[in-house]
């Protein structure tokens, strides 16, 4: 050990610093132990299990990269991954796009009470459990007794098979997701809007800029860090879509709306192929890491910081 390291170590535990060092380590100990046991350990174990064949009942055996090779040939996996990506693109675009527009529309001068009422209405669904609202929407989406088709019928639209047709199933999940989560994006975007200086808008008004032009040339660029943050968080969230699909379509018809996490769950806890489930889990982790890395790279490049 070098002399400086020795000194530093002595410093941490010297009589005047010892108490603080011990307190600090004690204060973070529960969180650190929890992290090691329930996050880091399982993380490493996932990598190990992905190299094994294990069905919970007989002892695990090492199979090398066989699980990953199986992934390449697994058509259902690619179908499921495609569904999840499709869902992510449209749900994220809808949530972030509508969320930002709502935030801008609600950020104008209006009666505070009205403003709160609107924000509350849009935000409330984000607080309610997905299982609970999905059960409600499953009734609303029914072909014959559903409220949505009833109102569509009033304007002359034939009953839509929201949940039972392969073409519509995933769209129904997307609609539910936007309804549920748009309010959250709206609130985060509102926070971002309030950090933009009013001077920009005053200058735009003096220039006689139209409100649409102000939106594209001032609001969007200045809000870009917030938008980027929302895009990242929503994309990572979208790749975990599970509950709403379980309730609405149960992945069907066929595999038309099955998602990646549903597939992981089914492989692990229905087919008891823990090794394969772990391998697909690593795919999910890889996607999450890539999205985060893109966020970091882009935030340096195009996000506009004041």
């Amino acid at each position, binding site marked *: 050990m070098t002399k400086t390291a020795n000194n530093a170590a002595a410093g941490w535990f010297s009589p005047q610093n010892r108490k603080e060092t011990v307190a600090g380590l004690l204060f973070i100990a529960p969180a650190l132990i929890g992290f090691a046991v329930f996050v880091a350990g399982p993380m490493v174990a996932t990598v190990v299990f992905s190299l094994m064949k294990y069905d919970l009942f007989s002892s695990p055996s090492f199979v090398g990269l066989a699980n990953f090779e199986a992934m390449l040939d697994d058509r259902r996996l690619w179908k499921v991954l495609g569904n999840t990506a499709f869902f992510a693109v449209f749900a994220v675009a809808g949530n972030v796009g509508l969320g930002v527009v709502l935030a801008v529309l609600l950020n104008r001068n209006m009666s505070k009470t009205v403003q709160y009422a609107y924000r509350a209405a849009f935000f409330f669904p984000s607080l309610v*459990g997905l299982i609970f609202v999905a059960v409600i929407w499953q009734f609303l989406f029914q072909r014959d*007794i559903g409220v949505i088709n009833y109102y569509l019928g009033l304007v002359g639209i034939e009953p839509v098979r929201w949940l039972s047709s392969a073409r519509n199933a995933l769209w129904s999940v997307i609609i539910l997701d936007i309804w549920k989560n748009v309010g959250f994006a709206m609130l985060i975007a509102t926070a971002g809007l309030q950090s933009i200086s009013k001077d920009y808008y005053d200058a735009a008004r003096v220039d006689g800029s139209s409100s649409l032009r102000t939106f594209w040339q001032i609001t969007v660029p200045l809000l870009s860090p917030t938008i980027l943050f929302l895009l990242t968080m929503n994309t990572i969230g979208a790749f975990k879509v599970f509950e709403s699909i379980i309730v609405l379509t149960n992945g069907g018809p066929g595999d038309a709306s099955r998602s990646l996490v549903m597939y992981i769950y089914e492989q*692990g806890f229905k087919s008891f192929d823990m090794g394969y489930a772990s391998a697909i889990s690593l795919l999910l982790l890889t996607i999450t890491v890539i999205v985060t890395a893109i966020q970091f790279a882009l935030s340096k490049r195009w996000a506009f910081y004041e």
Partner: protein
Amino acid sequence: MHISWDMTPVRLSARLSPETRAMISRLRTALIYAVLGLGALVMVAPFLWMFTTSFRPVAEAFTLPPRWLPGLNSSLESYRRLLASDVPIGRFFWNSTVLATTVTLGYVATTTIAGYAFARLRFPFKNALFALLLVSLMVPIQTTLVPLFLLMRWLGLVDSQWSIILPGLTGAFAPGMSGVFGIFLMRQFFLTLPKELFEAARVDNAGHFRTFWSIAVPLAGPHIAALSVIIFTMTWNDYFMPLIFLNSVDQMVLPVGIMSIRDPVGNSSATSEVIAAVSLSILPVLLVFVVAQRWIIDSFVRAGVKG
């Protein structure tokens, strides 16, 4: 023809009289209010439909056209049938309450004290350890599911509330929320407190825990409350972890319980019991929201991204 949207409105409005311009502006405001109102209605309508349906006589619960307000023939039939059925809805409710409360208390306590240490105390490897914890922000719970299940099975905790309480208690994660989220939030807050506050405590020779408990915690009250509301709601709402870990009817929480009694939709009476059960499940969240609405929205708006 190409219409340039960024030019036309300016030129057009410049030619109009001030009165006309004021009228157009008023019309536009009215239009925005109307669109927003329609949107807000779409957000609220499913809940309204659920509550009124739960109070309709079972036989006419799903008849169309839908009724949006409870009428004179409101009925508690759905609730009565739900309570009289084999479904232990009271048990689910109790399990959810115990689980969400315990996880919240444990998670908030652990992450608050860790956040305080990372913000205010000096100890070796502080920054490296914090960076290590930040990694968990990127790890979806689904990724570690298999080992987590095997770990809980080895500990003999499968089908026990402890399988979900334990990670929350240690601040590792709460349902849907990485542990470092709470640590990060509280650390950010404690960093904003002036040093002088803590120097005074040092002069008085107060221990580090005492300083934390009697100076830092009271000041952090609103932040602790906001974090608690978030964690409680997320635990109350979570389906994924209870689905994996809690299987017997005795241990089930509301989301899993509701899925277990749900019939494929038909006009059967079981479905209006499901609607009643969902209404009951949403009630606590609704009550908290009605009471603390402004405060929740404000804390979200202020928390923002920049923190």
